[in-house]
């Protein structure tokens, strides 16, 4: 089909708007990257735009030498790995039985689970429960209480529904039980959805901080975003410094940028590789009950 001149111009206008979008998304990151690599004098004089001025790695060295910060990175990475594995396990064993049409009591179990998506007791009841369970200020509070997301479970279940039932039936005729079918047929076919949900759960843990803020008082167990919040605010908000007693290790603006980079880069390296998976995953979530 030959395109008219008018529609070619239109295509270019569309392409231009997309270019603007790319700029708006990337510029903030580039600016912070440039700042983190610049000399602090250049920053004070407002010379840094999108390219480092007076290139140096001092800020990164200082951040790496700050044991509190590096420990928090390692700690959050550990929590992320453990949490993601636990969440994937729980999500799978919850979603899989619910794909059996013949399962007696499926409707009531479904209702029990879906109800929690629309109504929750709230923050304080959760806090009191965790207090009762003696979870407060223990590492377990950062892993277990939110380990199973109904939304993610629905995504996985929708994916399982897409696996042809004939596969399951023929395996069952050969004498395989439900668990056997799960392990040898469903899981090997579910790489896309497992990758998607692993990404969702991992990003959730890496980026989350409200549970650490509310349920964790021990500083050595703070997750990275919580610590980062204190660092960023202790320099612009004196209130927070005195309240939390966190002393910034002689930080300048460059340091602030470097800490932001450290907490961002892990995710930025992971998500583009999983793009083709999570697009399917994010769409599956929209299929309704």
């Amino acid at each position, binding site marked *: 089909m030959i395109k008219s001149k008018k*529609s070619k111009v*239109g*295509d270019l206008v*569309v*392409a231009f708007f*997309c270019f603007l*979008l*790319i700029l708006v*998304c*990337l510029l*903030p990151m580039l*600016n*912070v990257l440039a*700042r983190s690599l610049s000399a602090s004098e250049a920053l*004070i004089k*407002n010379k840094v735009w999108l390219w480092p001025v007076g290139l140096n790695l001092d800020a990164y060295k200082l951040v790496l030498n700050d044991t509190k910060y590096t420990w928090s990175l390692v700690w959050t990475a550990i929590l992320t790995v453990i949490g993601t594995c636990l969440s994937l396990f*729980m999500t799978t*064993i*919850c979603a899989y*039985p619910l794909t*059996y049409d*013949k399962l007696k009591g499926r409707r009531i179990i479904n209702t029990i*689970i879906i109800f929690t998506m*629309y109504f*929750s*007791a*709230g*923050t*304080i*009841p*959760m*806090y009191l*429960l965790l207090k009762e369970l003696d979870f407060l200020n223990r590492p377990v509070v950062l892993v*277990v209480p939110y*380990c*199973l997301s109904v939304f993610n*479970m629905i995504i996985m279940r929708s994916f399982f529904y897409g696996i042809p039932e004939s596969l399951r039936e023929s395996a069952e005729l050969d004498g395989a*039980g*439900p*668990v056997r079918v799960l392990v040898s047929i469903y899981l090997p076919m579910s790489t896309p959805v497992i990758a998607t949900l692993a990404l969702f759960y991992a*990003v959730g843990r890496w*980026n989350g*901080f409200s549970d650490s*803020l*509310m349920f964790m008082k021990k500083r050595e167990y703070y997750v990275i*975003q*919580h610590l*980062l*919040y204190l660092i*960023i605010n202790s320099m612009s*908000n004196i209130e927070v410094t005195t309240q939390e007693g966190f002393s910034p290790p002689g930080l300048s603006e460059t340091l602030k940028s470097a800490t*932001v980079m450290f907490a961002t880069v892990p*995710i930025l390296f992971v*998500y*583009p590789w999983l*793009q083709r998976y999570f*697009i399917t995953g994010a769409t599956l979530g*929209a299929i*309704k*009950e």
Partner: protein
Amino acid sequence: MKTVALAGSPGRGKKFIAYIKRYWTLYLLLLLPLTYFIIFKYIPMQYIQIAFKKYSIVKSVWEMPWAANNGLEYFIKAFSNKDFINALRNTIMLNFLDLIFGFPAPIILALLLNELPFPRYKRVTQTVAYMPHFLSWVIIAGLARQLFAPTSGLVNNFLTKIGLDTIPFLNEPKWWVVTYVFLGIWQSVGWNTIIYLAAITAINPELYEAAEMDGAGRFRKMWHITLPGIRTTIVTLLILSLGRILGSEFDRPFALMNHMVNDVANVISIFVYKYGIQALQFSLATAVGLFQSVVCVIFLFMANALAKRFGERGVW
């Protein structure tokens, strides 16, 4: 009828045993998730009582005495609390602005991306546009503070350079609201296109061909084919957003707020955090949380009923 049922029952019993023998492992698998939901979602519901009771640290929830005014003491206190009224107003205001500006944004972007004829460029644009979704609000707040800093930030430097006044993006209530809404769109617009783009792919391409035969241009096709084609998706997502009009995120306002903008940034979730977790006024904070949860459910039902009335599918 009765005799038939009776005659059938021994067979049924056997059938049931066979069923259990075959599928008991499924129940075993469900045991752990169900325990999780009961412990972490249903047991906390007993503490909702605290909203109607005088909290006591030594007594169990069931033994605590009822609060004054037929147990409604803390709801009355909440609604006569200036801070709460302020939080209620801010929650509604910020969510409403998010709805007006944030809801159409991904639809427009999806239409735009759908018009982009260069596949590789489209893919790059999408990858970049998804990126902000993967940043935490603490990081976005950190980026925003640096970019929008009054004297040293990139944006204000640029404004001064072209001869304009600097703008207090994060330090002045009105501008803070603008920045809050803008950053919300920035963070979510790319990600939210995924669902619309998927819906667009499902539209029958013959419709476009037929429209072209009739001489329809880009905008007519968009208006008469693409938009109607994704209407169901739009309505479903609209219902969900309407249901959240009184819901409040915690991370976003908490990370972006500072003491200069408390007056507009204080939302219900932050009120609950301040009064409940920090000041330990459990009854008051639980009452506020309960009020919020209940209103959210009511709104969701209403939005759903409304959608069904207009002949849409609804959420359930």
